[in-house]
């Protein structure tokens, strides 16, 4: 890979847990973290981001790695410096090898060896039976602005989607007050809107806030709600070379009490 910088910023966006599950597939790399069985966040780097990409297809390449150490190694020449990156992994139990070469000065190379652990099992949050009910595509910076404006002291966020006007509304409940943000589908920040039937979903505001870091580095966000209330946010990060990286967040809803 020519530059580890974008990868590093994407990893930092999902860095709310100490370690991540690193999974290399034919299609690309995927790093996943979980927060209290309620939020599952992954960074997905499609194989076309790499100049060369080889993964054995007869075994699962799956291990646990410290995400803090990994980002630190990627940033070893400082955040201002672009560096090319090579990654090697031999087999289960062996360390992940990183070879970084700074672009602005030649003849400087860094070899990093990061110890790996056996991966934990990950939650299978996606339910094949639950069909997708609504999908909307928003501009990430505008959505980030809205989330940043929400009252920090609130615990619960309510998202209402409906085919009628206003199509999307976000309600937060404070101590005595209620705040409501309404966004019609005609708004500039909404790029596409599909919703068959009105739904009201409640989530922990804290869980929603976890995506803010990832929103800050992304261009576009896709919200998908399935009939069981599971919220899937897919964030697209577009690099200068038109290649894309993604992050995904599954957020479990609060049940009505």
């Amino acid at each position, binding site marked *: 890979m020519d530059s580890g910088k974008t990868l590093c910023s994407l990893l930092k966006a999902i860095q709310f847990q100490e370690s991540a599950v690193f999974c290399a597939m034919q299609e690309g790399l995927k790093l996943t973290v979980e927060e209290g069985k309620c939020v599952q966040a992954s960074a997905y780097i499609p194989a076309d981001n790499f100049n060369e990409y080889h993964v054995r297809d007869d075994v699962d390449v799956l291990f646990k790695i410290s995400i803090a150490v990994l980002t630190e190694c990627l940033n070893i020449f400082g955040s201002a410096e672009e560096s090319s990156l090579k990654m090697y992994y031999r087999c289960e139990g062996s360390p992940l090898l990183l070879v970084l070469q700074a672009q602005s000065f030649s003849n400087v190379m860094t070899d990093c060896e990061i110890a790996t652990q056996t991966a934990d099992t990950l939650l299978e949050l996606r339910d094949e039976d639950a069909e997708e009910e609504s999908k909307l595509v928003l501009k990430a910076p505008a959505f980030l602005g*809205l989330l940043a404006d929400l009252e920090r002291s609130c615990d619960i966020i309510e998202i209402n989607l409906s085919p009628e006007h206003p199509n999307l509304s976000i309600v937060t409940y*404070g101590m005595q007050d209620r*705040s*409501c943000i309404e966004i019609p589908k005609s708004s500039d920040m909404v790029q596409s809107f599909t919703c068959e039937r009105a739904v009201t979903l409640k989530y922990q505001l804290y869980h929603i806030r976890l995506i803010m870091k990832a929103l800050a580095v992304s261009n576009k966000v896709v919200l998908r709600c399935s009939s069981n209330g599971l919220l899937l946010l897919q964030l697209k990060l577009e690099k200068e070379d038109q290649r894309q990286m993604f992050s995904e967040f599954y957020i479990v809803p609060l049940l009505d009490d």
Partner: protein
Amino acid sequence: MKCLIPGPNVKVLGRTIHALARFGDELYLESSPEAILLRTLNASESAYAMVKFNKVFFSYFNYNYFSAKDQEGLKCKISMKSALHAFKSPTHMDKQVENLEIRLDAESCKLIFIIKCKHGIVKTHFVSILDCKAMQAVYTKDLVHNRITSSQKILSEALGNFQSSDDQVNIEVNTESLILRNYVDSSMDLSKVIRTQISIKSAEFDTYVIGRETVITFTIKEFRALLAFAEALNLPLQLHFEVTGKPVVFIVHNNTTFEAHFVLATTKSDTPTQTSASQNSTITDRKRKEMGFNSNSVRKKPNLDVDVSKCLDEDSHLFDYIEMPIDIINAQNNDCSNKDISQSIIQENVDCDNIPPSPTSKMKIKTIFKRCFESTFDPRSIRGSVLAENSDSE
């Protein structure tokens, strides 16, 4: 009540709410046929602020929207936190907000803020009403002896020199100048506090009428807040005050649309027999003796012309020699008449005449200084015989 505020004015309202939030925790709203008033009072009831928005501030104004019979407007109290939440970031509010509607929902007893933003986004805040009382402070602003109008910049620049730990400011006024000091309680450990004193000449103010010379002391936190407000709106500040113990009133207004009054209680000095002026200056001197070189943080002498800075340099040599802090720049300002603002605002001065004659230690200081202030004194005359070496820093 129902009113609609156009985009640019929303920013003004946002600034106002943020300034009021520095005063009190609760916000009182009151509507009348002509205007809307926002008031707040701090917990210790020593600071009060009132901002009046006239009808022309709004693009639509109806003080009692629901019943035409009811001649009384709205009176209510809401929590400042909720109000702040509606105006989270006043700095870029004007770019996003198209208009703001404030409406009272009589059925649910909620005050509703509806903010219409760009891109068709509508933010609605339902704010609970805590109480239905109105509140008003009694103070006079018209029949006072002392009135000063100042551009917001002078005072905030002067206040910038104070330490963040200072909590009270002391203003001494006479017909020639205004002296700002940080107030030091007699119970404080004098070896640990930094004394700051800034003298501003009357010519720097837009108007300067002093009917009675006085010294007032009030809290610096609210003073900073209201100065920030005046600065954000780029409007001059009027000070109306009487003697110590009576409140000081700060007025910021934009002729037709709004008027803000900030009222701060002034404290009486601790020892009634001594005027606080002389009390403070004795503290100053004693302090300087103890502190030695430690207190030079407040010295500022931007673009002084060569003559003056030379004099100052020589003075500081003098003071070094008798182990006084180098920040004591003496009152040369009498000679230099046409100095520009930045020069004359910030001056440390040691005014020997202020020292009460009684205690002996102070008398000693007076005699040491005396020579320097005599008109025949020429600093160059002692140049040849330096009695002590300059300190390393020079």
